[in-house]
């Protein structure tokens, strides 16, 4: 299997300002034709990003989901507003026992600007 160099293949893209994303909540940004959900997990001082599409019923809503954590390791997660399926904000794995996997993206905040790490060429 081919293992890709992650760091060097990432390109940082400015997508919005920190104040655009509510504290402990999410917002959706448009990158080309893609919709990406960005989460401002201010309680943990962390930012996360995933695809906006909930794989369950193909709904563009994850940014409107509620975030939180689960388990002893406090795995950060988001719950889809439609049927409350939850997904890890770290791995994109579905935590409610289904086989879904969503994309996650690295996020970087510099001053009041939010950047998304996208694969080069996107």
């Amino acid at each position, binding site marked *: 299997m081919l293992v890709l160099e992650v760091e060097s293949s990432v390109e940082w893209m400015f997508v919005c300002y920190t104040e655009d994303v509510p504290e402990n909540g999410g917002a959706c940004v448009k990158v080309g034709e893609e919709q990406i959900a960005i989460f401002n997990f201010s309680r943990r001082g962390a930012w996360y990003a995933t695809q906006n599409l909930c794989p369950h019923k193909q*709904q563009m809503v994850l940014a409107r989901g*509620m975030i939180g*954590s689960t388990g002893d390791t406090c795995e950060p997660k988001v719950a889809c507003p439609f049927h409350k399926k939850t997904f890890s904000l770290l791995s994109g794995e579905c935590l409610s026992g289904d086989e879904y996997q969503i994309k996650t993206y690295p996020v970087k905040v510099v001053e009041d600007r939010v950047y998304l790490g996208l694969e080069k060429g996107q």
Partner: protein
Amino acid sequence: MMNVNLDPLFQKPTVVVIGNGMVGYKFCEKLLAKTAAFKLVVFGEEPRPAYDRVHLSEYFNGKTADDLSMASLDWYREKGITLHLGETIQEINRETKTIHSLNGITQSYDYLVLATGSSAFVPDVPGVEKNGVFVYRTIEDLEMIEAYARTARKGAVLGGGLLGLEAAKALIDLGLEETHVVEFATRLMPRQIDSAGSNMLFNKLQALGLKVHLNKNTRTISGEDKIKGLEFTDGSSLDVDMLVISAGIRPRDELAKLAGLETGTRGGVVVNEKMQTSDKSIFAIGECALYNGMIYGLVAPGYEMAEVVATQLCAAGEREFRGYDMSTKLKLIGVDVASFGDPFVSEPDSRAIVFEDSHKGVYKRINISNCGKYLLGGVLIGDANAYNILLQTVNNKIVLPPNPEDLILGARGGEAQAGAGVMSLPDEALICSCESVTKGMICSAVTEDGVTTVDGMKKCCKAGTGCGGCIPLVKDLINETLKANGTYIKNVVCEHFDHSRQELFDLLKINDIHTYDEALDQFGKGDGCELCKPTIASILASLWNDVIVKQQPIQDSNDRFLANIQKGGTYSVVPRIPGGEITPDKLMVIGSVAKKYGLYTKITGGQRIDMFGAHLSDLPAIWEELIAAGFESGHAYGKALRTVKSCVGSTWCRFGLHDSVSFAIEVEERYRGIRAPHKIKGGVSGCIRECAEAQSKDFGIIATEKGWNLYVGGNGGSKPQHAQLLAADIDKETCIKYLDRYLMFYIKTADALTRTATWLNKMEGGMSYLKNVIINDSLGINDELEREMQSLINNYKCEWKEVVDSPELRKRFVHFVNAPQEKDPNAKFEPMREQVKAREW
């Protein structure tokens, strides 16, 4: 030819299992749990390891093949089982004690276990080979049905038995416009339920949109390559695009027959009570085995057969198969159906008690021994809540109470009784028949091993992991044992808070907590989740009645955007129309707003108007226009007061005793916006004819000659319940005073997402206790309740107005924060009857 003979290093005797279905798998598990003395080799014809066929239909509800799998390939590897998948055995040579597979594998055995199950029985009707004709047995069958159903409009199922009705449900779930069931007999499920029960089921299924044809003998399946319809011997016909045949099962005994083992005339490998076939070193278990002239088409008896063989092989004592109880319960298309014990015995061998409510579609029959002491069996249609306890009563020969009719009519406070009833079972009562778990084992898992949840019980002793039918009973047993041990069963909110909602309510109030983060820091752990956030949001709102949008991200998604989210991600808009009264001018405003924003409009069941399909970014503008015209939020999205329905009352109606519309408006405006553990609905009727359906609401007010009657704790929804009388012939002021107290008491003490009906059902002492609190002030809290309610009322603000007036808050109502003027391109509509609807997902 490949030869996988006895491994020379391991001189263990070899047990070969043919068939890797549910029972074949269970046999491996059971044998290995008892001994490591054998080498196990398994051949399965299907491409994947054994999976849960009982829950096959859940494949259509999103379960994957992996979800249904009984054990992973790793499990077989770890246990040292040699598993050959996709290998059909075609011959058994009893002389050389070897078997041969279609692909050329030869394997010798010391003991052979046939677990070949059965296949769907396909009757000899011309045309069964046509495209669009299926059976319902394997995951592959379901994949083919699912693919074909995408282009089909009308489907039929041949066979109105247990499996046929399950298949019909699957077709409905797959979205076919029409689903038919064709049955040869004169009634449905003739093998499980009596004819009165069948009739009730028939009516109920028809009412639910399933088209049932009885007494139909199919002559031929018409169509060229593809099925086009069915033609019956009575000359009638039915056009369909697809057909699922579910006319029974045929045991797979072809190998056994070929090998000269004794088989039944109507199929099945003949076995004795040790599950031995006519060859002592060959066993047959599961649906291929014919014991005492009977094929057991259920999984629990199959598991018992597996246990019998495993016990014998490791010589761990005698265990014999003694026949099996064929009781079943299933949920068919929203109708409970159960039969237990002997459903058919009748006079003069027994007496029957029958309860029939054709209005609700409920039929219950219990058969009682002539001496009146024992329950022999029965049938339940439409409401099978009592199934588990009735089955236990039969199986354990429990002596009946003096009024056995209570068993099906439900004595008052029936739920509490059913819960306590389980404790009266003997320790050896079999609770989970799939896994042979007794009451004693469950109780000791609770007492000795500290198991407190159903999931824990599944891990600990496997109870509830088979067909799942015993889960309610397991839950009751866990709770009752905990109670008996003096353990306080705590209803905690979630993993982040070790408190019940009521405790949190008190804690947040006493400690003057106003934000979620403060609550989490002081009383919780971790970062919260989708369970505790909305619960606390609702408590904070009930305590301080602060504007909901201030704490947006902890609100449930609907409260976060002050609208109900719908398919496709758009929202609905419901302005308050108190009491259902609206002026022509306001009607026109709704019309013009809906037109301007392209919204679908509908009169709701709550006497107001819902506008569907609003884009997130249009919501503030829509509300701005509505508010300007004098509307306010209807809180259709909140756990809050919804509507107070009214009938026209004395202003126009010739029977009206008082002005119900004015009273409904007054009450609706009084409690609007107040947050509660669940939504609250009310109704006011002008006389006992009850046109406002007030008795189906959380509170209902009905005019009497002398004043008003106040009813509380009613509910529509999935478990309808009539409200109960709290006070009679009271005046308006008293009525409002009692309502203030009642609602505030509910808000403070109910669990999250519990309607008033459920709250009242669970309340110890029930209605008489509530009356004592509300009317006689038995807790001495009424002044406080009234004060708290008044402060909530005083703090009311229309939350949509707050948003419309605040540029800060309006900013949150966009789909893309980096392209606020763009709408979500994925929210799509389709035309329907001059309006639009959301695109199917």
